[in-house]
Each structure stands twice: as structure tokens, then as C-alpha cells.
């Protein structure tokens, strides 16, 4: 089931340090991640992440595809939240083209992206709880995620790698019952969040497993570039949707949940609250979807003027950024994807020092990484 490699190395003080391996195949590393742990007895004194098992050369591929042809590749990075990836990429290219999606497209994009944020957090919650031993929340989360994926399927035909957006707007008009479906989902969702909360939030075993585990204070977060719920749980009240609004986020009212300590429990609370806020955004958005075109006039062949642009959005995992350099041709010259999971994973070493081996799994889970995004 996992690689069993143990070797001993002598440390400076002559004590034996045990290096064990959480191999690329492991039920709890959420993908092909290899973590080498240096142990002193039961405590972790150092770690090294070995990544790259899922490296597919996406940035190189981008240089050999046209802008529209590259859009489906972007879904496959953070495959849990494909719609967010697509939003970031389409908006970045739109900035490059100095074009803007029409208002109706922006609002529908917001709704779908917020639903995707909820779906991503639901998957995170289910698997994180499963790693810590709670078997039931996974199925409840999957039940809700199923509803969201059904909405995606009705909208664009795909559940996971959706390619929902196009450069310049949307290809598909919102289907007839989109507002009703979203409203029905949001109406039930509050009580469902309450269900997950009841199972975990006040549970003293859960608190015992997550309080003061994986501490990362705000200075360290910023220094290490950690973003998203990891940053907010350490106390920094900052969200890209509020700082530099994109899509239609400036039209809606929502709160930014923050934590105090930056431990696993705070990250859990922040993500639960983010789900609630996403629900509120969806409810506000469906009340008033403006009429109008869904596609800007960008033309079929996209040849952005020379130059470069950097655009980032608040993905479910953190700041998802796209740096696109255009040389005037139909293919981008360079596409760089700033992956939130890759940069958040750097903080792992800092977070697991001093903890027991058993906590490593909880801490990897709390970072909410997707290896497709880490390795690209």
C-alpha cells in the first residue's frame, strides 16, 4: 500500500534520526505526493516533499496551442475546481485582449464559480474528516456535491472538467431552470452545513485532533506566500475578491471569515464559513441576472497585441494567478500558472515540525492541495 523505506542517518549529536517515507501511493496524501519525514522518536524534526509525479508540462503545451485550444488544459490542473481555473484563464486572456465579458456573462460566471468553490470545499471537508477518522461527513458532503455537479452537467455537459467559460464570455446560455436549481440548492444548503458542523465543530475529539495542530502565523503565511483559507485562518482579513474584484464580485455583499490562531481547526472553520458566504453570493446573484449578450466581440481568431498581463483570482485553494505573455501570434508565448497548492505546500515543512507522525496526515489535509495543480 505504501513504500516502506526506513534508513537511519546520524545527526550532529550522534542521536539516530529515522527517515521514513510517506510514499507517492498513500491513502491520505491526496494524490501522488511523497513526503520524507525525519523523525526523532515520534516527533517530526524535518521533512522534505518530493513532487513532480503528476508533472505534465502544461506550461510548455500552452506555447503550442492557440488561446482557445489551451482553455480545456487549464481545467485539468486543479481538477477539483475546474471552473475556477477556467475563470482565471479566460479573464487573463480577456485582459490581454483588453476586452471584457458582458455583464450577463460575468454574473453567470460568478454563480458557477461560487458553486464550484462550495463543491471544492465540500470535497476537502469530506476527505479531511475521513483522514482524521470521521467516516460519515464524506458521504454527506458527496451528497451536496452531487447536486452541484448536476447543475454543471445541465449547464455545460460535464461534471468535473467543465470548460464552462470561453474567452470573451460564455458559450452556453444559462439553461432555463438554472436560477431555480441554484435557489433550491442554496435553500437546503444551510441546514446541511449545520449537519456537518454538528458532527465536527463542537466534537471534542475533532478539536483535540485539530486544535494547535499545524500552526502557521500570519507573518509566516505571508513570507511563505501561503494564500487562501490558510492565510485567512492565520488572521489576515484579505480576499482577492474584495481586494481586486473580478467577475461580478463587486456587486455582492459577503464577509471574509478569518481565524485567530492559524491552526487546523481555524482553517476548518474558515472553509465552513466560506461555504456559507458563497451560498449568500449565489443567492444574491440569481436574484438579478442581467439580460444581454453572453459573449464579447473578440473574434474567432484571437491575436492579442504584444505584451503581457498578470491576473489572479481567489480560487478555492488560494490565489490562482496567470501570467501570459503574448508575441502577437495566435499562440501564447508564455503561460505561467501561479498554483496556490504548490506555494501552500512549501509551508508544510514549517507546519509539521514538532508534531507527531499521526498529525502529518491531518496537516497535509488541511492545506487542501491538489497534486494536479502542484505539479501541473
Amino acid at each position, binding site marked *: 500500500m505504501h513504500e516502506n523505506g526506513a534508513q537511519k542517518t546520524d545527526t550532529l549529536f550522534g542521536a539516530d534520526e529515522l527517515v521514513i517515507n510517506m510514499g507517492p501511493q498513500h*491513502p*491520505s496524501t491526496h494524490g501522488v505526493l511523497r513526503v520524507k519525514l525525519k523523525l526523532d522518536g515520534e516527533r517530526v524534526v524535518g521533512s522534505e516533499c518530493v513532487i513532480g509525479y503528476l508533472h505534465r508540462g502544461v506550461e510548455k503545451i500552452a506555447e503550442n496551442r492557440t488561446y482557445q485550444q489551451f482553455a480545456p488544459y487549464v481545467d485539468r490542473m486543479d481538477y477539483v475546481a475546474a471552473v475556477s481555473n477556467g475563470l482565471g484563464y479566460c479573464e487573463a486572456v480577456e485582459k490581454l485582449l483588453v476586452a471584457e465579458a458582458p455583464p450577463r456573462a460575468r454574473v453567470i460566471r460568478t454563480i458557477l464559480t461560487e458553486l464550484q468553490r462550495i463543491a471544492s470545499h465540500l470535497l476537502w471537508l469530506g476527505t479531511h474528516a475521513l483522514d482524521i477518522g470521521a467516516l460519515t461527513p464524506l458521504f454527506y458532503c458527496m451528497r451536496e456535491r452531487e447536486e452541484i455537479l448536476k447543475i454543471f452537467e445541465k449547464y455545460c455537459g460535464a461534471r468535473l472538467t467543465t470548460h464552462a467559460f470561453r474567452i470573451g464570455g460564455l458559450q452556453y446560455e444559462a439553461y432555463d431552470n438554472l436560477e431555480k436549481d441554484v435557489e433550491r440548492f442554496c435553500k437546503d444548503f444551510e441546514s446541511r452545513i449545520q449537519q456537518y458542523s454538528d458532527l465536527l465543530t463542537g466534537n471534542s475529539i475533532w478539536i483535540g*485532533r485539530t486544535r494547535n495542530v499545524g500552526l502557521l*502565523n500570519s507573518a509566516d503565511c505571508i513570507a511563505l506566500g501561503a494564500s487562501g483559507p490558510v492565510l485567512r485562518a492565520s488572521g489576515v482579513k484579505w480576499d482577492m475578491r474584495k481586494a481586486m474584484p473580478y467577475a461580478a464580485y463587486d456587486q455582492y455583499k459577503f464577509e471574509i471569515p478569518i481565524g485567530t490562531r492559524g491552526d487546523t481547526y481555524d482553517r476548518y472553520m474558515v472553509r465552513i464559513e466560506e461555504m456559507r458566504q458563497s451560498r449568500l453570493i449565489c443567492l444574491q446573484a440569481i436574484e438579478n441576472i442581467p439580460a444581454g449578450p453572453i459573449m464579447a466581440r473578440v473574434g474567432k481568431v484571437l491575436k492579442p497585441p504584444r505584451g503581457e498581463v498578470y491576473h489572479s483570482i481567489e480560487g478555492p485553494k488560494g490565489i490562482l494567478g496567470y501570467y501570459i505573455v503574448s508575441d502577437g501570434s495566435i499562440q501564447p508565448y508564455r503561460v505561467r500558472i501561479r498554483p496556490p497548492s504548490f506555494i501552500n505546500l512549501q509551508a508544510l*515543512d514549517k507546519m509539521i515540525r514538532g508534531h507527531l507522525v499521526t498529525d502529518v496526515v491531518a496537516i497535509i489535509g488541511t492545506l487542501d492541495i491538489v497534486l494536479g495543480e502542484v505539479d501541473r
Partner: protein
Amino acid sequence: MNPTLHSILAFVETWWVELLCAVLIVLVVPLIAGYIVLVERKVMADMQARLGPMRVGPHGLLQPIADALKLLIKEDLIPHNADQFIFWLAPVLSMTAALTSMGAVAFGPWFQVARDINIGLLFVVGVSALGPFGIVLGGWASNNHYSIIGALRSTAQLISYETTAGFALVSGFLLAGTLNVRAIVETQRTDHAWYVFLAPVGFFTYLIASIAETNRAPFDLPEAESELVAGYMTEYSGFRWSLYFLAEYANMIVVASVGTTLFLGGWLRPFSSVHWLGWLDAAPTLLLAAVGAYCVFRAGKQPSRVQSLFMWAVAFACFVVAAIFALASPFSHLPLEKMHDGLYGAFWFLLKDSAYIYIFMWLRFTLPRFRFDQLMRLGWHILIPLALINVVDVGVALALSSEFGLNRWLAMVVTTAATLGAATLLLRWNDKYSAAASASLLADSSVVEDPHAG
């Protein structure tokens, strides 16, 4: 006649009931354990908003048979450098300990292998304490670094909670005044109270300790897959693994039975000594008849003919068993009357056993897992002191009621309140202690550039 054969026949003639019980235990318990697994999967599914096994047989009822067959025909893998003999012996040891301890457990007034031994429950507890041998030997014989760590952790957990369980049982023994299984249930009848009401702290401490004893969640860290250490069962597959597995479920039945016998009144019906509630005696019959009636009611609504037939069959079986119960009641004046005590007692005993095991399952699917150090802290810092205090309190209450003629119930209530007060203090002290410990462990530090970082 050959004197050896004669003595054997005489032995069988005297002890045929016990021998029958023993044979039934060895043959039937594996099957029952398999069906407990099915029930667990169905209960798990129900709590998780899904259906559970549905394919193999109607509503998955043949699932355990399929699983057993699969395990039997699997390839028998033995690791290369494993100690062959011990590798074979370890699961056998676990299974033997579990089944032997069942010998002294009485599933109703007539079903008991070791009748009237004066050390009754102590025998059960003692023999089931041999189970950890099977675990640690299995972990060692696997020749796998992580198996031995898992085995040692599991053993540490088991022997820690053995102490708690023992003390909790002692409080029950103080009330009963005897270790003899039959006598314990008898005294609960004469005392007009199940000991769970007289010593509730003892019962709940035993409940928690028994969950830890059987390696069930939330105490299942040694078995958890998502941890680094895969546990003592890693290298076992196929039939050997199924022996461990059955040993675990047999242990569950044993601890549930011990708890039921000592605290929940064994095979007594609720309010067994209250005569005007004698109509409760009809409860088994009525319950089974109700289940049968429900099956009849649903039979018509089944989507396919096969499923309707299945429901009819289940209804028929329920009615037959209900009829047997009815015929065995004292009113029927039939020879079946002799089986009244045995049947009804077994029914109530198994009902309470099932409730106890249902609580195990319920907790498994609701609660996350303890970390090993938290588990040990719970056992040593909280439960053992609590169990000790409880024993002292029960003793004090008994002394008060016998020496000073204080009403037994009053004495029990007062001492239980005292125990609960002590428990609150313990928890508070423990919270402070563990918060301080973990805070000092993870002192804030600035970002350090370590050459091996990342």
C-alpha cells in the same frame, strides 16, 4: 463395554447441553460475526444516507457468505522472512481466546458452556485478556517494521483499558457480591434494579473501556488505514485475516455480553420483579409478530415478484418464531413451557446485546479517531482515576446502606453525584494540563531557512 467408551458416553450424557452449546459457539459464532458485519455495513450506510450492500442476495443478505467464500479461496501469502510457525499461530491464538472466553458467558439462562463456575465473569475477562498475545505475535511474526509498531500500539491500548474495564466491573461485582454469572443476574432480579441504575458511572466507564478493548473507533488508531502505521494485520490475507477479523467481532460480542450481564440485567425482562408489569412477558411474541405484519404489509409494495416472495418468506419466519414464543409461554400448558425461561431469557439477552453493539457501531460512524497519545491520556489520566473513585464510592455506598441502614438508592445517588463531581474536576484538570503541554510544544518561531526545508 469398553470402560473408556463407557466413561465417554457417561460424560456426554451428563454434559450434553454444555457440549452442544460449545459446538454451537464454534460453528455459529463465525456465521453470526459475518452477519454482524453485514448489519454494521447496513447501519453505516443508513447513517451515511445510502443503502449498503444490496446486490448479493436480497438486500445484501448473502454478502457475508460471499465474503467468507472469497476469503477462503484467496491465495495464502506468507512473507518471506516471517516466522512460519508464529505467523500461523497468532491468529489462531486470537480466535481461541475470543471463543474460549465465550464459554463462560451465559446467553440466557440455559445457554452457557461453563455453568456455575464460581469465577464466572472473571474467567471471561481473564481469558479474553489473552487476545493481545495473538496481536503482538502476529505483528512480530510479520517481519515488517510497521506491523510491529502497530501491534505494540494496539497491545498498549488494550492493556491500558483492561485496567479501566476491570475497575468498572469491580464496582458491579461489589453490588452483586458474586462473580458467578447466573448469580449476578439473580441478584439484579432480587435487588429490583439493574446495576446500570445503581452504578451508572461504572457502566459508562465500562462502555468506553470496552470500545477501546475491541479496537473500535474512536479508538481504532492501530488499525486505521490512513495512518503511517498500517497495523498488525497488514501481512495477513485470506483466511488468516478472517480469523483476526472474527476474533475482533467475537470480542465485541463478549464485551457486550459481559456488560449486559453485569449492568443491564442479563436475561431479565425490564421490570422483572414488578408483577403487574408481567404483561411485558408477551413483548417478544408481539414484537416478532409486529415485524412479521410489517413485512406482510410491505410485501405488496415490492417492485418485483422475487422481492415480494422474499418479504413473504421473512414474514413467515417471523410468525413461526413468534408462534414458538407464544407456545412456550406459561399460559399454553404445553411441554414447550420448559423452554420458556431459556427462550425468553435468550431473547432479552440478545436484545440488550444488540443494543450495546449498536452503540459501538453508532459511535464508530459518528466520531473521529483519537490520536494515540490522546487515547493513552484518556485511559490513564481520566478513566482509571474515575473508575477507581467509582469503586471507592460504590463501596462507601454499600457500607453506608448495610452498616447504617441508609436507603440503598439514596446512598447510590449521593455517591454517584460525588463521582460525577470528581469526573468534572478530572476533566478540567486534564484540559488545563494538555493545553499547557501542547502550547509549550509548539512555541512560535520565525521562519527558519533550513537547508533541508521543503
